[in-house]
């Protein structure tokens, strides 16, 4: 079909956590511009299986930008050349015939490679388990309007809650810092009356866990905000710094 393209892919292959990986070069032919990046990988993997070779391991689930699984560092950027999208929302029309595309896993001490492009992001889960929740004994659901929340706060909390835990912020950051993720998770609760009760201990515990996991320190390059598929704002990082300083001082 006209408009279809032939591409060269340089993909990171790594058998397991322990072994050192290396790049393998593959070529794919007749790729439709309407395919998603992951569909192009499906084509490549079918091809590899047919050739009796080891297919490339990569994470994916929803393929509609909501689960945050599809971690691929494409040509030097998490989730590829577009802003505000995940890899599954990236289409091959963003590339052109003859392109060489380099695909790497997220690189961070706190995200060890499981195999090829799949990384272990359970460090994020442990940060959440450390304090990213509201402990209440649930009873009947109350009328939503009985707790008054200013519209601005509700909007900010909602925007912070849009974080899908994909880890692109860590992948993009030159310091491998997880501040955007953790600050979004702190903010979505700290802004609301139900979350304020435990705000102090929450921020202390989540930051302590973040440091224990081996993420780097934020130097405010704001690469995270630029690469976040959900456009999470660095205002959240300032809010978390504020909460953290206040918690330590009180």
């Amino acid at each position, binding site marked *: 079909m006209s408009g279809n393209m032939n591409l060269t892919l340089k993909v990171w292959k790594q058998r397991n956590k322990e072994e050192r990986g290396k790049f393998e070069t593959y070529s794919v032919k007749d790729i439709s511009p309407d395919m998603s990046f992951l569909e192009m990988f499906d084509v490549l993997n079918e091809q590899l299986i047919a050739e009796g070779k080891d297919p490339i391991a990569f994470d994916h689930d929803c393929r509609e930008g909501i689960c945050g699984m599809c971690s691929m560092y494409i040509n030097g950027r998490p989730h590829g050349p577009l802003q505000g999208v995940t890899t599954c929302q990236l289409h091959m029309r963003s590339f052109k015939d003859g392109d060489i595309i380099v695909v790497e896993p997220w690189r961070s001490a706190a995200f060890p490679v499981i195999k090829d492009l799949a990384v272990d992001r359970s460090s994020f889960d442990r940060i959440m388990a450390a304090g990213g929740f509201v402990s209440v004994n649930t009873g009947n659901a109350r009328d939503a309007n009985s707790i008054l929340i200013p519209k601005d706060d509700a909007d900010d909390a909602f925007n912070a809650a849009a974080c899908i835990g994909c880890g692109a912020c860590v992948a993009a950051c030159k310091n491998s810092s997880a501040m955007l993720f953790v600050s979004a998770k702190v903010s979505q609760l700290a802004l609301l009356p139900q979350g304020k009760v435990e705000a102090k201990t929450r921020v202390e515990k989540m930051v302590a866990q973040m440091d224990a996991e081996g993420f780097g320190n934020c130097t405010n390059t704001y690469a995270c905000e*630029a690469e976040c598929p959900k456009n999470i704002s660095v205002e959240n990082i300032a809010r978390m710094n504020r909460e953290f300083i206040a918690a330590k001082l009180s």
Partner: protein
Amino acid sequence: MGITGIFLITFLIVHCGVNALIFFNDGGILFTKAAHFMGTNWLIRTMEIVLFAGIIWHIVQALVLTLQNQKARPVQYAVVNGTANSKWYSRWMGLLGTLILIFLILHLNHFWVDSRITGIDHPPIIIEGHEYDNLYAEMKDVFENPIVVIIYVLAMFSLAYHLLHGFQSAFQSLGLNHKKYTSLIKAVGFWFSIIVPFVFALMPIAMYLGFVK
């Protein structure tokens, strides 16, 4: 980093303000008096010690952060497109800071060592019957050398870019981000980062070209 950074910024205001007195072009009278005050007032002398401690603390923090951050990414990316998501000077703060440090050593050697330790090799300047250390003559001496002038001007570019990132970054690190005030902080930071290094850079240029006598 934020607190030491803001402290160093306040130092720059004072330092730049005092030195800019040479632009009164009065043969250095105002400047000499101000420098004398700065060199003899006990509060300022105490702050000088705090300043050196601040610089060292800022550098120690930078080193610790950089080492931790390198450990956080043991395997590097083969391809990084940093320009797509951040300003180059936000990624090169360590290098810019190191250039400032090299300049600082040269600069302290030019003025601070002479005025505080070895003594100035110019006869004192006499204003209204009082004798003052002639730092002004020392300044004119130092800035006779075009190489020195060029180094000072280049160093001010490093400072400008370091501040361009550092000023707003310090406020963000301290959690001072606000829907109304952040744009103001960023604007003040931007103009501060341009004006202060520019005024500093004008000093050697003006002396070398003889605009300030």
